[in-house]
């Protein structure tokens, strides 16, 4: 019997697993998909919020501000792309200036450092591309941008390196209370554990209902985005928000840690896994973004995507134990990514209160490094290629990703099994040609290294087969 089973390996589940892996505990992480970080974690604004949005006194306020600090420290320790670029919330009217004053007030109460109100001209002096109609802005220096999937991956890898067991393709189908613990039924068989953590994201309502009386509804909200070419990546240098409304934080314009520009999201009610974009949604996002930054060249778009957030209609996360030894980390909508490490820390505290015995490990491996060929000096590149020629072969030309990096990611604690899994680990296929050139070569490498036929290689989730069949004359039996 495991000590703790964690359901879901997005940012929240991974952070919780990592925090628990500091202790002498038997941990099992269950993930319904074939990889970690593939739900809300991979499809959001990639922003680490400073913490002026949540209502003071809420759990959300506390975990956001704490999470912002932890993300910075953890990204540094675990080699996750992070840039402390700060953010601005723009006001276009007297009413919105009032909103900025409220946000400033909240931020101060929440303990957000360095907040400052700027005039329109001061804001434009920092961000020359802002619209002339901007009257004022709230500057938050502790806001940052991050690679969300790499942060989640780093947390999950750390948990696995420190003994946690990750089971992929293990969708939870039922939970039963058994004596002192629970039996969790999954697509990969049963798991028994003393404690259960529900970190199932948009499915956290359904998982809750398997173990406790129904008490909340997840009302998923879909947000659509544009990702623009690096040629637009320097259009702004900080995260540019508009004033939040009841629906969310509004349409933002932000650089990404990978050098692109991200624009979005809208907020539309949706089904839990409906990640489709719509013509109307994208048009709305474009129109709203141009109000903040009129010069954005949308002809430089390289990708649209949508992500689903686990909203509940409440203004706080739903964290607590609805049944003995069963911990909900539910309704983790924005700022969930920022809060994730703080949620993990808090989860440990709550499990201890439920009686989980915590004894620190003597040795906790909290290190992670990966080679990023593109970022090396010419001398370092030369040395690396001499040592391992695979680092000399560029597979993804847009992002300059080498075969050596792909082979290395296949030897990490959570190796990829799909083309997009490779993309999330080393950026191959993330660039302007969107894998047009490198996807066939990544298929070839995966097929060779995983000993699978190219026909078995998937784009992302299990079932997303890339190829139909061999060409005529290619079949072995002809």
């Amino acid at each position, binding site marked *: 019997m495991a000590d703790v089973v964690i359901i879901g390996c997005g940012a929240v589940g991974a952070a919780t697993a990592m925090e628990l892996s500091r202790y002498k505990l038997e941990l099992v992480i269950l993930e319904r998909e074939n990889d970690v970080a593939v739900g809300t974690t991979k499809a959001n604004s990639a922003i680490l919020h400073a913490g002026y949005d949540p209502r003071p006194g809420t759990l959300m306020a506390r975990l956001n501000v704490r999470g912002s600090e932890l993300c910075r420290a953890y990204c540094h320790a675990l080699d996750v792309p992070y840039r402390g670029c700060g953010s601005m919330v723009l006001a276009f009217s007297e009413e919105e200036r009032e909103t900025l004053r409220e946000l400033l007030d909240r931020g101060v109460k929440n303990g957000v450092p360095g907040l400052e109100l700027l005039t329109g001209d001061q804001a434009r002096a920092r961000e020359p591309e802002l619209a002339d109609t901007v009257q004022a802005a709230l500057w938050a220096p502790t806001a940052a941008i991050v690679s969300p999937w790499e942060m989640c991956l780093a947390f999950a890898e750390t948990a696995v390196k420190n003994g946690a067991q990750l089971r992929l393709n293990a969708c939870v189908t039922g939970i039963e209370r058994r004596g002192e613990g629970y039996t969790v039924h999954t697509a990969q068989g049963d798991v028994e554990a003393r404690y259960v953590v529900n970190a199932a994201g948009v499915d956290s309502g359904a998982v809750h209902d398997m173990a406790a009386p129904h008490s909340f509804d997840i009302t998923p909200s879909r947000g659509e985005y*544009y*990702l623009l070419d690096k040629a637009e990546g320097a259009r702004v240098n900080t995260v540019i928000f508009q004033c939040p409304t009841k629906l969310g934080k509004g349409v933002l314009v932000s650089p990404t840690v990978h050098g692109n520009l991200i624009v979005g999201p809208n907020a539309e009610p949706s089904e839990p*896994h409906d*990640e*489709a*974009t*719509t*013509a109307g*949604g*994208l048009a709305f996002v474009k129109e709203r973004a141009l109000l903040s930054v009129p010069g954005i060249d949308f*002809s430089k*778009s*390289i*990708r*649209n*995507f949508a992500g689903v957030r686990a909203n509940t209609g409440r203004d706080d996360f739903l964290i607590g134990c609805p049944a003995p030894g069963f911990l909900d980390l539910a309704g983790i909508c924005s700022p969930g990514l920022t809060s994730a490490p703080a949620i993990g820390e808090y989860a440990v505290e709550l499990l201890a209160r439920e009686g989980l015995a915590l004894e620190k490990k003597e040795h906790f491996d909290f290190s992670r490094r990966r080679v990023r060929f593109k970022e090396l000096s*010419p001398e370092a*590149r*030369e040395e*690396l*290629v*001499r040592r391992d*020629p*695979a680092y*000399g*072969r*560029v597979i993804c*030309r*847009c992002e*300059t990703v*080498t*075969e050596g990096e792909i082979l290395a990611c296949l030897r990490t604690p959570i190796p990829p099994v799909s083309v997009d899994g490779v993309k999330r680990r080393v950026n191959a296929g993330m660039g*302007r*040609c*969107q*894998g*047009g*050139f490198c*996807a*066939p070569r990544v*298929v*070839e490498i995966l097929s060779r290294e995983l000993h699978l036929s*190219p*026909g078995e290689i*998937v*784009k*992302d*989730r299990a*079932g*997303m*087969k*890339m*190829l*139909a*069949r*061999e*060409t*005529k004359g*290619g079949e072995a039996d002809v």
Partner: protein
Amino acid sequence: MYELIVVGGGPAGLAAACAAWDAGLRSILIVERDRELGGILNQCIHNGFGLTWFKEELTGPEYAHRFVELLSRTGVEVRTDTMVLDVTADLSVHMTGPETGYRVERAKSVILAMGCRERTRGAIGIPGTRPAGVYTAGAAQRYVNIEGWLPGKRVVILGSGDIGLIMARRMTLEGAKVLACVEVMPYSGGLTRNIVQCLEDFGIPLYLSHTVTQIRGRDRVSEVVVSRVDENRRPIPGTEMVFSCDTLLLSVGLIPENELSERAGVTIDPRTKGPAVYENMETSVPGIFSCGNVTHVHDLVDFVSAESRRAGEAAANFVLKGPAAGEAVELLNGPGVSYTVPQRVRPGNVEKALNVFFRVNRIFGKSQIVVSRGDRELCRFKRDRLAPGEMESVTVPVKLLEGGPEPVAIAVKEAE
């Protein structure tokens, strides 16, 4: 130090290197990222190449092979499986490859011949889900012709560019069912011969003034929605047709790949999305030349070879005789013309006549191509039909371009 480094060993780089050798350079390096020379021609196994240049019909690999043969008779050095990562304005070329290692080579001249890439779903913003089964036509061509795998069995093709048309036929021959080719413009972007030989001959319907407005399916494409568009290319509600398919191929345009050129400080022409060049294919940076699809997207490789020889000869002249001099005359788009290559001409550097490539911006019937300077007409050329999908060229006697820096415009006038 090399006299010339050619970035890219496709048709442009091969022809340029051969020409530079013929013109007297003896220290030339071609750097090619793929394992073999030939570039994209290697996956173009259909015929129709070489009708102009070799006066016979070849497949893509055969066409490439002719040049590789020519090259093998020279002393041009080749490094394959090696990618150029940076070209600096002082002509240092950073490259990396498993055998090459990471190294920096200096050169007296550089020819950019990196080719182009395909526009993607993200560039045109097709709404819907993100399942497997959406490929650019070129990627599908690689899967079928190089990897030996068919990417899908029921196919809709968006865009009537040449690669899309070729793939309609290729997928059909491999046993896939191609349901439709959908083109947002009221005319095809491909060559007429490809419309006939790749669609009409196989009974594949071409829907002009239509586009894909939604992709459906969670794991794999299950349906695409096609709508008619109005004259502003906006989908018309109520005209939706649903195709049940597992694959959507995109043939929605090619973009010259100029990230290296931009890093080297080369001026890019927003019309061609390639380097703005002089009559000898020299870019805005002295000693850096460009040719082939990195300069402007061609329909026929034969013209790439012609243009690239010009670049190779010019690089040799630059190294052996020094920079080309003389005042430049700008070539402008007149009505009906969307770009010209070259963009600038130094008449003193042209022997007899200048060959100007250009594209028109819509379909024209019987027309006159008029070359003029201010109000003064310099010459005119007759054409029966002009289409944006077919590159045009005119040969202008250099005498007409002499006499000061006043720009020269090229325009199309349709007969009444």
